[in-house]
């Protein structure tokens, strides 16, 4: 009986080893439309280019859950590559979950924009996204040009904002702080908080569900803030009901980083995938597909796609140091809860 069992065990081991040698790279990243478009623009071309490597997309609704999964698998990782938000990547790096992505992993690293590198984060930026105003084109006839449109009295009760601690809320605080003429957001955002406080009574919900895009597309709300890439996609799928505007005052970037999991089972194959994901070829494809701005400076993008990203307005962008923000984020959240949300009750 023991003999038979050991045969079974070795058979299983062989199966496991052989499947590993067929080179599967497990990637964790956002579910939903991100998965759909990333698979089409990056993963499928990659697998065509490297027929020996299969990329498995292990989707998660948000960065925090990816971090949670990586934590749970720390002793025996099942995931090789993780695409997640830069501040969550910092936490993962601090906990020793990731290996450094440098030029030894990918030659493309040297071509990345400077803000694709963050101090103390093992991974590097793979997509840039930015906050935009989104609006229902039936209710808002002319495209807003300024963030101040949100404070317009005629949209009272029709504005939806995803509050802090979500990074939409955090980013909005930093933008509002600049609008209100406040100082360095790393030390004091009280001017921005006060400005959002004025907006608070007219806010319909601070926690739009299922996301900020659907209620605006279906007319439940008129105006809100959202991420450019997703807004561009929903603008198309909603048949133009959802409008996207990048205000003239500029915006702030959100950075997704690509990270190599420490002791990743796929080894070299994982590095190959990261290299590809950072290549101008993949970057251009994903930008045309989903309108995330590229992080590789060598990327060449068609003009019409480029117009729908913030890549043309780099100079207007607030340079947000997300690692500094991570340190003050709890304070910002607390101010939202004490000085903004109560004003809207």
């Amino acid at each position: 009986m023991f003999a038979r069992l050991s045969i079974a065990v070795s058979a299983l081991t062989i199966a496991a080893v052989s499947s590993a040698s067929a080179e599967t790279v497990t990637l964790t990243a956002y579910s939903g439309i991100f998965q759909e478009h990333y698979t089409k623009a990056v993963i499928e071309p990659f697998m065509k280019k490297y027929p020996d490597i299969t990329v498995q997309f292990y989707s998660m609704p948000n960065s925090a859950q990816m971090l949670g999964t990586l934590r749970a698998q720390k002793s025996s990782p099942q995931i090789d590559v993780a695409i997640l938000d830069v501040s969550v990547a910092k936490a993962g790096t601090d906990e020793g979950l990731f290996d450094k992505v440098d030029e030894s992993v990918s030659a493309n690293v040297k071509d990345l924009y400077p803000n694709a590198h963050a101090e103390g984060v093992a991974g590097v930026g793979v997509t840039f996204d930015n906050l935009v105003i989104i609006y229902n084109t039936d209710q808002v006839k002319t495209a807003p040009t300024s963030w101040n449109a949100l404070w317009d009295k005629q949209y009272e009760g029709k504005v939806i904002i995803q509050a802090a601690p979500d990074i939409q809320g955090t980013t909005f605080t930093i933008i509002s702080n600049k609008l209100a003429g406040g100082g360095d957001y790393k030390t004091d955002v009280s001017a921005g908080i006060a400005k959002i406080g004025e907006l608070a009574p007219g806010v319909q919900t601070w926690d739009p569900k299922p996301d900020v895009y659907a209620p605006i597309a279906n007319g439940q709300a008129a105006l809100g803030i959202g991420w450019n890439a997703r807004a561009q996609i929903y603008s198309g799928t909603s048949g133009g009901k959802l409008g996207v505007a990048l205000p003239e005052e500029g915006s702030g970037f959100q950075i997704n980083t690509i990270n190599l999991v420490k002791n990743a089972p796929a080894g070299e194959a994982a590095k190959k995938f990261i290299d590809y994901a950072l290549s101008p070829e993949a970057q251009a494809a994903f930008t045309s597909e989903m309108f995330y701005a590229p992080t590789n400076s060598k990327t060449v993008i068609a003009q019409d796609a480029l117009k729908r990203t913030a890549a043309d307005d780099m100079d207007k962008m607030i340079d947000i140091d997300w690692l500094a923000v991570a340190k003050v984020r709890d304070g910002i959240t607390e101010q939202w809860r004490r000085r903004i949300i109560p004003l809207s009750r």
Partner: protein
Amino acid sequence: MTTATFDMPVGAQKPSSTAGIAVALLLPIALVNAIGFILPVFNLARMSFNEALPGGGIAEAFTAANWTGLLQDSFYIELILNSIMVSLGITLATLLVSYPIALYLHRASGAWRTFLTVLVISPLLTSAVVRTYGWIALLAEQGPVANVIASMGFQPPRMMFNTTGVVIGLTEILMPYMILSLMAGFGRLDPKVEEAARTLGATPFRTFWRVILPLTLPGIALGCLLCFVLSISSFITPKLMGGGRVFLLATEIYDQAIVTLNWPLAATLSMLVLIIFGAALAVYSRVLRMIEG
């Protein structure tokens, strides 16, 4: 060993063997409970003493900082009290709307009763998410409820994305649980006893107050315990209907665990919910003893 058993009188073997069977039967559920419940709770308790680093990191530590910080922070004190008050409010509202239905069902008989019971339970076949979206549609600014209120000449109040919405939504969602608990506790309510009260000169109201209500207290206690526990731990409806304005323990645990990544704080809040459950259970058993005593 076998010889020793032969010497033993037959009767003496029996208790030990039945005890053995009992242990064998209890073992699987005990194991499942240990792995699926007790172990995670211990992990959670341990996590609540770790140190949270900015940006979502966790440092292994043994500090009471999460606990003391929580209990010194006026925001969290308010949040805890608010959670308890809102849950009590929901429990009371659920009781008030469910009681007449449960009483009617208790008195109904035959196929009619079966039909009505199925009708009462049927909402449980639909997920709370779907039902909550239903309420969002009903209570929307231009929704049917607002239109009815407006047509009566009143300014419709805001009924969604605030505490009112959460209370309305959860009350409806918890009604089947309350009705079933009430019916389960209505066993002592014999219609003959009500008739006895009537013939002894009690008006319908006094019959209710002096006889029906006291006899249904066990059901009320059970339903209230269940609904309180379900409402304080419910997350979906407050999240969908609260509009980010209603801060409750369950939604806060989600935010801390998933958005802020402050797992130690989330664990501390979870332990606090567990403590509130324990308190609710203690109150329940006390009330039950009072009723039965």
